[in-house]
């Protein structure tokens, strides 16, 4: 004798279709043009930053870089739904969200240029630096959320990771803890369909990544990740639910990685360029721009002005980065512990003695 003892559903939401047409009434915030334009600015700023970073890398002035081209809406939409006192716990492809949260382009360039000061955010002081290791930052977000809960603060931790990360045990363990304690945390999967060369279908047999939440007893849902309005709406609702004590949510944002995995990758080894082409029609800047233009909220002049403004801002940041001298050698030691143990002081003195002899060719 068999009975059905549990039933589950996964929903998918979108606000704008591929062509930028509203598919139904838009969320309330979209009624205010300023809100949409702020989102569009965030997307554009991210894309300009990405382009500059790639250019710097190509000319040997930045390290290996992971561009977010095509995925900006997930990051920007998510960050736009957060309050400043919330805490962002991002993986390495979330420049968009970081910029919107107040991390400066200069800080980002410093980080990717190989300078620890790039994670000394002057803005969002409690945000985590990016996690290069895939997935192991998810428990940090749960920990931050637990801190909020224990202090009875109405704050939310927001963690982003990729489709690949969902296969790793750290994510499973973090989600499970978030579920048990109904923590105020929102997990966003930026499902760009690839983990380097591994396509989504080979990452997991689950039909959606959103349904992974079912394993932990909380809500999982999908959103069109190239539709920044939908991302903001869906993530925003989850954040507010979390803030009210409603517990965690897992949101799978469906997007597409238009570029190489990083500047060290050559995607043509494992995917046809032709397979990427249609996705250029889906990409988030185009989509929102179409909507804004169609609804008379954005003109060619606006676009040109914005491009000029962003290009100037990012160029200035790049300049400032290139002019920032590296840290002194002792900076290698200074932050290992709150105070320098004797053995480390000895090692530091050894390095300083050597580097005084042969001044390092710093980059």
């Amino acid at each position, binding site marked *: 004798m068999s009975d059905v003892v549990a039933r589950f559903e996964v929903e998918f939401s979108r606000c704008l279709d591929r062509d930028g047409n509203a598919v139904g009434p838009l969320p309330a915030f979209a009624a205010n043009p300023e809100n949409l334009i702020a989102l569009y600015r965030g997307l554009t700023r991210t894309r300009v930053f990405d382009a500059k970073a790639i250019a710097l890398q190509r000319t040997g002035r930045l390290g290996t870089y992971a561009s977010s081209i095509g995925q900006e809406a997930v990051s920007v939409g998510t960050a736009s739904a957060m309050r400043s006192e919330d805490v962002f716990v991002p993986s390495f492809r979330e420049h968009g969200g970081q910029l919107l949260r107040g991390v400066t382009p200069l800080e980002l360039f410093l980080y990717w240029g190989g300078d620890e000061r790039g994670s000394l955010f002057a803005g969002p002081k409690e945000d985590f630096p990016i996690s290069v290791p895939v997935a192991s930052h998810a428990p940090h977000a749960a920990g931050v959320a637990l*801190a909020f809960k224990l202090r009875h603060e109405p704050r939310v931790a927001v963690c982003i990771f990729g489709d690949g990360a969902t296969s790793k045990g750290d994510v499973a*363990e973090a989600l499970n803890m978030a579920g048990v304690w109904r923590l105020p945390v929102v997990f966003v999967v930026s499902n760009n369909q690839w983990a380097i060369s591994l396509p989504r279908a080979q990452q997991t047999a689950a039909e959606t990544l959103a349904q992974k939440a079912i394993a932990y007893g909380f809500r999982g849902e999908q959103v069109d990740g190239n539709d920044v309005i939908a991302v903001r709406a869906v993530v925003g609702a989850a954040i507010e639910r979390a803030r009210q004590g409603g517990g965690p949510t897992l949101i799978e944002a469906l997007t597409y990685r238009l570029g190489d995995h990083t500047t060290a990758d050559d995607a043509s080894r494992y995917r046809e360029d032709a397979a990427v082409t249609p996705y250029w029609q889906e990409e988030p800047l185009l989509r929102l721009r179409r909507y804004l233009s169609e609804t008379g909220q954005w003109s060619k002049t606006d676009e040109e002005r914005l491009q000029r403004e962003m290009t100037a801002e990012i160029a200035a940041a790049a300049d400032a980065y290139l002019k920032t001298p590296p840290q002194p050698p002792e900076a290698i030691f200074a932050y*290992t512990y709150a105070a320098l*143990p004797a053995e480390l002081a000895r090692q530091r003195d050894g390095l300083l003695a050597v580097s005084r002899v042969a001044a390092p060719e710093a980059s």
Partner: protein
Amino acid sequence: MTEVNLVQAVNLALARAMEEDDHVLVLGEDVGIDGGVFRATDGLLRRFGAERVLDTPLAEGAIAGLSVGLGAQGFRPVAEIQFTGFIYPIIDQLASHAARLRNRTRGRLTCPMVVRSPCGGGIRAVEHHSESPEAMFAHIPGLRVVIPSSPRRAYGLLLAAIRDPDPVVFLEPTRLYRAARGDVVDDGAADILGRCFVLREGGDVTLIAWGAMVVEALAAATALEAEGVGAEVIDVATLKPLDTETIVASIGKTGRCVIAHEAPLTGGFGGEIAGRIAEQALFSLLAPIERIAGYDTVIPLPRLEQLYFPDASRIADAARRAMAYR
């Protein structure tokens, strides 16, 4: 002043730390109502409530990862890993995150967490319950690694570990939990991290040990004394950062040295200590440095385990061999 055993001393230190600082939390598997499988957290749930003492799901990696998040938010999580045999999954969180959060953010975020775990063998426990992985942690920059050898040190060092602004791995010798008894004054006075303790002075040979091996080293010293050999016994206590000075000073005096640890010989922390001596006190050495350690094998199951772990007699034998050099 009360006579307590080592696990009770741990319990006293935890309660004291929780009492004096609201930010101190205790979390782990079975630390709540059960009071921990060794009773280290006994009574804490009742006293401090479920917001300060958290029973976690069974996931060591996330216990550590959660602590990183809590630490970054200003809490002082004290996480228990039930046995050191199950601590390997947290190495990633410690090495990749906890130990570098301060460095990677140039001090913006820090991670004042403690991971406690019963370590070592000798209690005829089941498989995977007798591990001594301290050397792995001692290799991770940004961590501190501490192992007490008596109730008093357990109390003083654990308090220091909890108050320390950086991540600490605190390994508690299971074998001493009940066997080691001693007076502890529960006055909140912490020991200093990063110091070796000279437990016994002697001019002929230096016996260096930590955790349960300190007890064996002390017994060896007693045996040696009867033979007219003066053994100095050093309890390393903090493996990282290591107090090389105290060790080197002792070798300067004795010229002979036996290092004892339960962990397998190869790659054990004894090598690090030998290396420092061979660099900083070479010309004081009258005899080869002997390391008495676990063998480079899997720890045998209980029927043979007593053959595996170093003991006072192996330590004393090594010291006698060293004494043959004049």
